[in-house]
Each structure stands twice: as C-alpha cells, then as structure tokens.
C-alpha cells in the first residue's frame, strides 16, 4: 500500500481546505524550503483513508477485549458534542470572559470526576495515562520536598504493576522497590510492611489489581504506607470496574490518574488523542499544574496554584476529549455510572466461567472487570503458545486479548470484555476461543502459522523491534 506522500502529483489539490480568514503573513526568511504536503485530489484522499480503515481493527469493527485497556464502545453523541462550533471555534488564548462555557465544561467535569475519584481537585492537562502518572508522582514529590523531607527516595510498586508505574517513579527520580504479590495476586502485606520506612515516598497501586481482583486489604495497605509517612497513588487503569461503586479517595489514596480514553469512553489508541485526568486530595492541590478552573466573582476563572509543579502540557490538555468524557458522564448519570461498572464485572465473570470449561484460569475466583488465563498447560501439551492462539483469533476478525501480561502469569491472556459487549457477542467469542483451543490439539501447525486470512500474515516482530523505521524518507 502506498503512503499518502507517494500518491498524487505536484500541483494537484482539493477544495476541502477552507479559505484563509486571517490576515496573510510573510514567513520568516529562515524557512527556505516549502512544506512537504501531499498533493492529492479529494477522490485520492478519500480512497486512501478508506483503504487504511479497511486494514485496521477498532471498536467499531468487532470484539476488542484488550485487558487493562478498557476498549469500550465510544458513543457517537460524545463526538457530536465535541464537534459543536462553540467548542471547535475557540482559541486557547482568547480572554476567559469570552470562553465561560468552555471553562464551565471543564469545571463540571472536574467536579463530577472528583466525586467519582473521591478527590478534591482535578487537572486535565496530562495527555495520557503515563503522563498522568508522571504528574501524580510529581505531586507526591513536591509534597515531601515542600515539607523539607528529602530522605524519601523510594517508590514501592507491586510486581503485578503496569510497566509504566516503575518507569514513572524512575522518571521522577525515585528508586523503585518491587514487592512480590501473594498467591492470590494481591499485595503481600508482610512484604509491604518490610518495604516501607523513612525512605518511602509513596506507593503506586491499581485496585482492582492487574489480575482483575479487588484487593480486600486496601485500607490496611494505604494505612501501612501512610503510617510510614508515604503517600498513595492510584493508577486508574482499572477504574472501570468500580466507578461510582467505590472511590479511590475512600480507599485511602491521595492522588489518582484516570484515562478518559478508557473509563470515560473517549476514543483510545490510534483513535485518540487521550487524556489522563489527575485528581488529588485538598492538601496536594497547591502543587497541581496550572491553570485550574475556579469560581470567581460569579463567573469562572483560571487559578495558578501557589506551589505548582508547573505545566505538564500546553494550555488545558486535550480539551475536546474532556467534552466527550463530560457528555459520557452526564449521559450515564448517577445511576448509570455504577451500572456500567457492574455490567463490566458481570460480563467478565460470564466469559470467565464459560471459558473455564477448557482454559485454565490463573486465579480461580470471582473477578472484577477482567480475568487472566494461563496457557502454560496448553503450551506444554501442544506447543501452541498464547501468541499462536492470539494470532489464530485474527482469522476470526477478533482482536486478541492482552498477551504475556501481567508478567507474574506465564503464557498469559488477559481478557476485558467491557460492559458494552452483548451476551450474543460474548457467546460467539467464547465459542471461537474454544474452537482454537481444540485446534491446538488437532492441528497445532495451523496455529503456529496463523493468521491465514488477514491482509498481512505473521509479522516479523523481532525485525520490527530491532530495525524500526519511524519516518518517511522523502526523495531529495
């Protein structure tokens, strides 16, 4: 397939670009070469993107149970609201008194999410989850530094955590202390007690955890960290399981990030951009990135917290994403938010029990919004790995679950169906997973070489990782 720069010919164009409605401006002399823009007709452009659409798989194409990613359906009304001209025609630098509606949208979303998080202040600047983590851990660091407590150099992270947690702690200048999980996949309290001390800056945790189990010791966990003088950071990766049911703030967490592109149904992955909203308790508010929206003189204004860690992104974050999330929250309402969470949990358990007829569950108990299967036995008996089985799913038009994660489960497949999948879809998927399981025994080679019916076959993943081609080389 050709790239858009390889299509068309010099001088060809289209009428989709609007006429210039601002004064013309002479570019600085330093810019000597013309911009390299595609020269395509509207017809070529349309065909190009339609062809690309046919080669991808998104939530509008089919089942997409990527564990810990919450690939839920993105309601179209969210797009309608974000496309309102009152939002799209705003300039980020126009005076706040002329953008009160936009400030109100952020203000309302901030208070709704604050309620769901159990937090007192929310910023929308971080553009994604890891960015939110970075912001949250910087708040923790600013808190300790502000108190003159510079001996706290370590962040505790369980071994089941997302890789971004230790990476975030390291990026913030902390040493990472990994603690092992218990046999049930939850935090080992003794290991945590042994790990905390006067050098503990904080703990990063997600609950329900990465194997889809709600850690019932959560109040004890956060107390152990607080008693040692550390703070608790909630990774909102799995918030979809508990939103509106239990609040991270009430579990004892001091700050949190939540991906609006997961839990709050805005587009995810290539459909982004994302938003990693960060919430914190009142005592951390003064360290938040500015500006925050506040009520002032009967209207809304921007406030720059006194001891702010500084901006983490230009302007106000990915504003349109916030409008989509606001629409989602207001559409579901006080009753709908927890109902969605409960349906997500119900769906995961429905699939877990159905699949347990053939597959081995890593943790054989009631799960939250996702569950982990271990294909160790299947791999031993047939030579078919989790990767092979996942490739086989592609031939059925299914996006595979998350593979080889969490690291504490070998040959892992982690399935998160989300609340937006129907029983019919889940039945069909369980049937296909079961057929692939049987195929591993009857014809393992068919899975070693899968997929067979996709636009591209088995990809050279090693080659792709070692010889990355990240930019297009224009002919000089």
């Amino acid at each position: 397939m050709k790239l858009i720069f390889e299509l068309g010919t010099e001088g060809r164009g289209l009428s989709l670009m609007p006429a210039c409605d601002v004064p013309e401006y002479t570019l600085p002399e330093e810019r000597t070469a013309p911009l390299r823009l595609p020269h395509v007709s509207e017809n070529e452009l349309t065909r190009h993107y339609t062809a690309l659409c046919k080669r991808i798989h998104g939530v509008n194409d089919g089942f997409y149970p990527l564990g810990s990613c919450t690939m839920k359906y993105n309601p179209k009304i969210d797009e309608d609201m974000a496309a309102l001209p009152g939002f799209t025609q705003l300039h980020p630098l126009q005076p706040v008194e002329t953008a009160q509606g936009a400030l109100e949208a952020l203000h309302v979303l901030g208070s709704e999410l604050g309620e769901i998080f159990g937090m007192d202040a929310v910023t929308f600047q971080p553009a994604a989850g890891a960015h939110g983590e970075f912001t949250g851990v910087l708040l923790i660091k600013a808190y300790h530094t502000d108190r003159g407590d510079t001996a706290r150099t370590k962040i505790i992270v369980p071994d089941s955590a997302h890789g971004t947690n230790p990476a975030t702690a390291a990026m913030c200048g902390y040493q990472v202390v990994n603690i092992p999980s218990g046999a049930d996949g939850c935090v080992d309290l003794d290991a945590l007690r042994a790990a905390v001390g006067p050098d503990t800056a904080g703990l990063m945790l997600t609950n329900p955890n990465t194997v889809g189990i709600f850690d019932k010791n959560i109040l004890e966990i956060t107390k152990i960290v607080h008693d040692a003088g550390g703070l608790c950071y909630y990774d909102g990766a799995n918030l979809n399981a508990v939103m509106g049911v239990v609040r991270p703030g009430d579990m004892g967490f001091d700050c949190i990030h939540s991906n609006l592109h997961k839990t709050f149904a805005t587009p995810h992955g290539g459909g982004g951009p994302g938003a990693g909203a960060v919430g914190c308790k009142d005592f951390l508010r003064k360290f938040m990135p500015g500006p925050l929206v506040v009520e002032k003189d009967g209207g809304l204004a921007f406030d720059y917290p006194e001891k702010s860690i500084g901006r983490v992104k230009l302007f106000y974050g990915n504003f349109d994403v916030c409008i989509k999330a606001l629409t989602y929250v207001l559409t579901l309402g006080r009753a709908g938010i927890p109902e969605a969470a409960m349906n997500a949990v119900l769906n995961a358990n429905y699939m877990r029990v159905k699949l347990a007829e053939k597959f081995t569950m890593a943790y054989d108990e009631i799960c939250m919004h996702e569950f982990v299967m271990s294909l160790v036995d299947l791999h031993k008996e047939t030579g078919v790995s989790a990767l092979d089985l996942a490739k086989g799913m592609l031939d059925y038009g299914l996006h595979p679950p998350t593979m080889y994660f969490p690291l504490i489960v070998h040959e892992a497949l982690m399935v998160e169906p989300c609340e937006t999948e129907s029983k019919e879809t889940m039945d069909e998927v369980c049937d296909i997973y079961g057929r692939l399981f049987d195929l591993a025994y009857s014809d393992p080679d068919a899975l070693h070489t899968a997929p067979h019916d996709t636009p591209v076959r088995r990809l050279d993943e090693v080659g792709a990782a070692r010889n990355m081609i990240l930019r297009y080389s224009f002919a000089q």
Partner: protein
Amino acid sequence: MNFPAELKYSKSHEWVRMDGEIAVVGISDFAQDALGDVVFINLPAEGDSVTAGESFGDVESVKAVSDIISPVSGTICAVNEALADAPETLNSDPYGAWIIKVEGIGGTEELLNAAAYEAHCAEEG
C-alpha cells in the same frame, strides 16, 4: 531444556560460572525460552558495582521487558558489549552469551546446583 552441571543458578534464572576469583553471569536456557525472542539488552558499564538480588540491566523480548538480577555482589570488570548488536545470541547460545564478569565478590544470592535449579524451573512451569 539445558542445565549444564558445572554452573550455579539463581531462582531468578541467571547462571554463574566461577572463573578463579571472577564470576561470569548470564541468563539460563529456561529464562531465554520464557522470554521469547530477545530484541534488546540494556547493559551496565564496566566499573559499576552490582548487589546480589538487585537488577543490573534488562532484556527486552517481543513479550516484555525483564530485569536481570545480579546473583553476586561485586564490581563489574567486563561487559559483553557484543550482545548490544546481537541480543539474539541470548536465545541461540544462552550459556555462551555471558553478560557481565564480576570481581571482588562480596556475597551471593542463594545459588542452586543444576539439579535443584531444574526442579525449581519445573515448579514454575
């Protein structure tokens, strides 16, 4: 699966060979098989000190990134830089592809002999 009898092993799947006073460290056949195709290795520098039980580098496979845990404490006196360009050697020749050599050994993790390590691997699946 290969478990050479002349080596010692850590429970986190590194092997150690004592070469006089120097400890030669790599990852086991079981480790490379569990990791899958290795695409990248993050190597330490000569002169760095290592602590038994703590990470001194990491390997990235198509599946995941994993820490390499030092089975011994001491100072790194040699690094197998060739692995940076050919990390796949860890898959094809795990016991030939040493990663670091450590001198001034101050302590070690609990190390297993080949039979005990093989049993440990069988337990982990």
